[in-house]
């Protein structure tokens, strides 16, 4: 070329530098993610032990964990395996699923306020579940109905908001309307239920973990694990989509199609989690932000940390409900919602202040 070359500018050297430093930012962030994950895992095991051991029959955390795997006193094994474990395991699975779903939604919509409970997905899932309950169908069908309801909510949201290009604030406003509308429908159905069904249906109004059983845990847990695994396998794709549709297209993706599939997987995950607990608020919204503060921007590793943190958070909230707050029968969703409301406000205020990044 004939262009004059600025001598101060780096002309392309022939070979990459020989010494590649392995303590770069990527490595440091990975180490930090791993450290936090280990901590979260330790906390998760500890809290699981405590949760399994606490109740009318007190068992030490260690004995409770052993009893979970059938070791130790038969009495403890019975109490832990039959009465306490389904609830604890439900909290862990649902917390992990909700947090992962929240993180994915925030990335796919590029909206820090997106979460299954701010855009109507958990409301839809509850609606589907309650509808199924009203028909008197078998319990195994509830997760399926929840996924159907979640997809229905997503279609409503899409219908209302998609044409307006999903503006950041509008998405959440429309989503909250969808969530409230579906919650109203759930309430309406429940007040018309016969008395014996009404109590079990209460879970679907605020989110609660009472009366979980192993059948629900196995079905829900397997489906959640499969969906989460599929999402984890797609993480490179998600990272490329983060660069915007043009860059993603240039790197060989079909952005519209890939985004839709990932969205469907995410909605399925959130709905399955909601099928276990009802529309528990806050976990999905808050955990991704917390993880970002602790470990940096989202990667495959931080998604794992997000799942662990979600599990720990929901289990902690349930421990509070069961053993600390002296109100009998308080649903866990009430606690998470109490924590969630101010958090949502803080996020909205912060977002109002932040200038929108264009490039």
């Amino acid at each position, binding site marked *: *070329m*004939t*262009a*004059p*070359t*600025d001598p101060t*500018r*780096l*002309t*392309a*050297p022939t*070979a*990459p*530098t020989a010494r*590649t430093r392995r303590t*770069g*930012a*990527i490595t440091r*962030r990975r180490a930090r993610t791993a450290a936090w994950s280990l901590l979260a895992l330790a906390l998760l095991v500890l809290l699981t032990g405590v949760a399994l051991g606490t109740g009318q029959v007190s068992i030490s955390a260690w004995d409770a964990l052993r009893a979970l795997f059938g070791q130790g006193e038969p009495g403890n094994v019975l109490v832990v395996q039959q009465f306490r474990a389904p609830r604890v395991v439900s909290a862990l699975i649902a917390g992990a699923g909700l947090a992962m779903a929240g993180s994915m939604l925030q990335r796919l919509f*590029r909206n820090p306020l997106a979460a299954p409970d701010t855009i109507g997905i958990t409301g839809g899932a509850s609606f589907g579940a309650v509808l199924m309950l009203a028909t008197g169908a078998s319990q195994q069908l509830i997760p399926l109905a929840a996924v159907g309801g979640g997809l229905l909510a997503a279609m409503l949201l899409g219908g209302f908001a998609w044409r307006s290009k999903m503006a950041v604030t509008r998405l959440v406003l429309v989503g909250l309307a969808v969530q409230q509308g579906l919650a109203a429908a759930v309430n309406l159905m429940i007040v018309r239920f016969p008395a014996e069904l009404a109590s079990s249906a209460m879970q679907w109004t605020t989110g609660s973990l009472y009366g979980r059983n192993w059948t629900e845990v196995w079905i829900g847990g397997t489906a959640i694990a499969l969906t989460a695994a599929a999402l984890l*396998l797609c993480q*490179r794709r998600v*990272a*490329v989509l*983060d*660069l*915007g*549709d*043009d*860059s993603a*297209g*240039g*790197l*060989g*993706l*079909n952005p519209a199609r890939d985004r839709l599939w990932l969205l469907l997987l995410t909605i399925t995950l959130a709905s399955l989690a909601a099928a276990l607990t009802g529309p528990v608020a806050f976990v999905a919204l808050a955990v991704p932000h917390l993880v*970002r503060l602790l470990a*940096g*921007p989202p*990667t495959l590793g931080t998604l794992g940390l997000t799942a662990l943190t979600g599990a720990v958070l929901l289990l902690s909230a349930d421990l509070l409900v069961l053993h600390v707050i002296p109100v009998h029968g308080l649903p866990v969703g009430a606690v998470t919602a109490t924590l969630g409301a101010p958090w949502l406000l803080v996020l909205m205020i912060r977002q109002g202040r932040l200038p929108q*990044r*264009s*490039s």
Partner: protein
Amino acid sequence: MTSTTDVNRLAAHSLGLRYGDRTILEGLDLELPGGAVTAIVGPNACGKSTLLRGLVRLLDPAAGTVTLDGADIHRMPARTLAKRMGLLPQQPVTPEAVTVEALVRLGRYPHQRMLSPWSKADQAAVEEALTRTGTAELRDRQVDRLSGGQRQRVWIALALAQETDLLLLDEPTTFLDLRHQLDVLDLVADLHAEAGRTVVMVLHDLGQAARYADHLVVLKDGRLAAAGPPTEVLTAELVESVFGVPCRVVPDPETGTPLVVPRARTRAAAAAPASASATAPASAAASASVPA
């Protein structure tokens, strides 16, 4: 100037491109030389960015085809195409808090399989891309905290890590000051000269296009106005008919390439050509007659 080659030839055949109902380009026949630097120029809204989007398959043709070395790009698997062509979009999205190296690594996406671990070849390509763009020392910095010029070089590094024969850039200099515009264009020239990349870029500045490109494509209102080497294409008549700007074309004192010098026009002549005679005398010496 390097001689053009028989590979990496992008071509459009009776290409029509549309956004919804709005036709942007129609009946475009075009062959871009392989192994060369091509600049696409034209007035605002002439469809130059749209053409680039059509050439990299971001936009499906409403009519006609786009071929790469004779093969229809819309019949190629997306990944195969992404290994041949890299793109720097006009406004890529920088993920929050992502580091330079992490961003550039994403350029390896078309070369990776779902479960394949990060390979030595991947790292080598990233190192090469960082070094060539002079961003190696920025690798641990957050991209959203870099200056515009640095950020643009990082995005070019991402496209380089993709290891494609062709590199397409959509207005790579638009938001940069002069110094950084030249940095980016020099970098592109180096990539062509030293790394053998075939470059296609949309540019705004005719002088820069003439300096840095071997081949010019001039568009007007969605149609091809002219194509060829800058010295042949860039004439005063063409610039006036395409941009509506009377001008002289003189050799660039630095490079000898064509340089477009717009004719001076008085404010009165520009604002109200009919009454130009009243105020013209003072500047008549400087400006030749300005056709209304």
